[in-house]
């Protein structure tokens, strides 16, 4: 019978954090429970998953709402489903002289993901509210995330704005979070946490396969519940996380759990729209395309009708 189940192809970074949830879905049989079979298609780079979705080789992948909104504005009907609110943050040595956003003035700061990175723009927006031009006041160095982490360790960079799983490792090595993009979101007026990443799928596919799309979202939610409560489930993931020691492993577990979205879909959509407007101001047309507001339907409508 198993063969009869329809397949959902999920394109993922092999060691991406989303993979933890996906593995849990399979291990716990949650996909079968909701009437589909999950096929994980691993890739080595984030760009690859994007290309795979464009080329129609996977049904679901992960990305952020900025990208989804921009593609929608250009006529590509993608939809976004929040996955995690664990977002980028600035890390610096705990003992150092960088304790707040203002302390970054005159410092060299590594920025993962380039000048259009969502977290970077959010922090710039927050800084500008207090009259600081973060891009001008600091020397940003754009580069590959692992390389930047390494450069912080080497002391070549004073601080690094990086993704949360890189930061979790740094936290075990004497580095502290200076400020997180989530704080920026709050400063813009968001009430809850906004998502950093989410599942992305083609709206047409979701409409043609409503049960699959729905089932996938339900399985994801169940998996999060398992990971939130069960330490055993985490043991299965231990190797997959690539944690080099127990401390890192526990930190990753803790941060992952904190990142499970708690807002209602509507609230999160509205919060995100607020943040989007701020980003549109900073990033301009280059970032968001012709639309100055988040494209309607960016958050999958199926979410609100359901849970």
């Amino acid at each position: 019978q198993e063969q009869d189940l329809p397949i959902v192809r999920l394109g993922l970074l092999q060691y991406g954090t989303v993979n933890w949830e996906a593995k849990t879905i399979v291990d716990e049989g949650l996909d079968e429970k909701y009437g589909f079979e999950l096929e994980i298609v691993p890739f080595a780079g984030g760009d690859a998953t994007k290309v795979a979705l464009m080329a129609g080789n996977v049904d679901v992948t992960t990305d952020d709402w900025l990208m989804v909104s921009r593609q929608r504005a250009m006529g590509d009907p993608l939809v976004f489903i929040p996955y995690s609110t664990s977002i980028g943050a600035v890390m610096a040595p705990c003992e150092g002289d960088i304790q707040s956003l203002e302390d970054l003035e005159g410092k060299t700061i590594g920025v993962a993901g380039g000048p259009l990175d969502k977290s970077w723009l959010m922090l710039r927006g927050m800084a500008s509210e207090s009259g600081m031009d973060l891009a001008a006041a600091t020397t940003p160095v754009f580069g590959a995330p692992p390389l930047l982490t390494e450069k912080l360790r080497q002391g070549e960079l004073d601080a690094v704005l990086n993704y949360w799983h890189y930061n979790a490792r740094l936290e075990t090595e004497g580095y502290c979070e200076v400020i997180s993009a989530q704080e920026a979101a709050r400063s813009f007026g968001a009430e809850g946490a906004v998502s950093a990443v989410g599942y992305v799928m083609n709206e047409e596919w979701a409409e043609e396969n409503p049960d699959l799309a729905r089932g996938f979202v339900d399985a994801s939610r169940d998996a999060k519940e398992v990971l939130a409560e069960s330490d055993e489930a985490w043991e299965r993931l231990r190797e997959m996380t690539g944690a080099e020691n127990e401390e890192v492993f526990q930190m990753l577990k803790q941060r992952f759990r904190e990142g499970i979205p708690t807002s209602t879909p509507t609230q999160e959509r509205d919060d995100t729209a607020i943040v989007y407007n701020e980003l549109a101001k900073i990033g301009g047309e280059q970032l968001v395309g012709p639309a100055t507001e988040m494209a309607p339907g960016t958050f999958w409508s199926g979410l609100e009708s359901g849970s």
Partner: protein
Amino acid sequence: MSRSRSATAARLLSVALFFLLWHVVSLYVSPRLFPSPWQVATFVLRETESGVLPYHLSITLLRVLAAFVLAMAVGSALGFLMGRSRGADVVLQPWLILTLNIPALVVIILSYIWIGMTETAAITAVALNKIPNVAVTIREGARAMDPTYMEMARVYRFSRVKIYRDVIAPQLQPYFAAAARSGIALVWKIVLVVELLGRSNGVGFQIHLYFQLFDVRAIMGYTLAFVAVMLAVEFLALQPLDRRAQRWRPKQV
């Protein structure tokens, strides 16, 4: 006899020196940034035993082989045509410069989007990246050919086979050797990118995974595994072929 034996000795010494140097450097650097040869060797052994490395390596090698053969065949034909016919050269030249300079990334993404994320797309993308390089090299060879041999062949009404096999190929041999050696390396480098961007296996896929984890040991391990294969190809296949091809040459002063 004794000459080739001393060459083997020198070669081994050279390789030993390499590992020694590596070992010494690794003593002074954090092992996370620069693991010692033994750490890398342990990793390679473990991954080999588990079958993971042989799996990814063999897949990558197949891709390299396919793209290499394709690129050499098409590139040589194109380069030869351009070297021999001024008309073809003038017309194709802008295209050559264009394709030479299109970033690998662009070609790869367009192939994936157009052909789909398939093996065909991957190999096509790699070959497309390499073809202009081969063409550029072979073209120089075709231009530098000595016309007196061709005249002789025409007088004696050489068949087409003889002309290509006995007159043209030997003159292009050094260019072909250069294109092949730097070609296989280039193909491999692009295969890595192709695997990063849209394949779910292969050495490039693995290397990038480990790059995300900043596991230098694993990156080095996979790299060296491929290099070892290339060294074997070099010494067991290319060099004997080379020696054969060079046999007729007078000694250099």
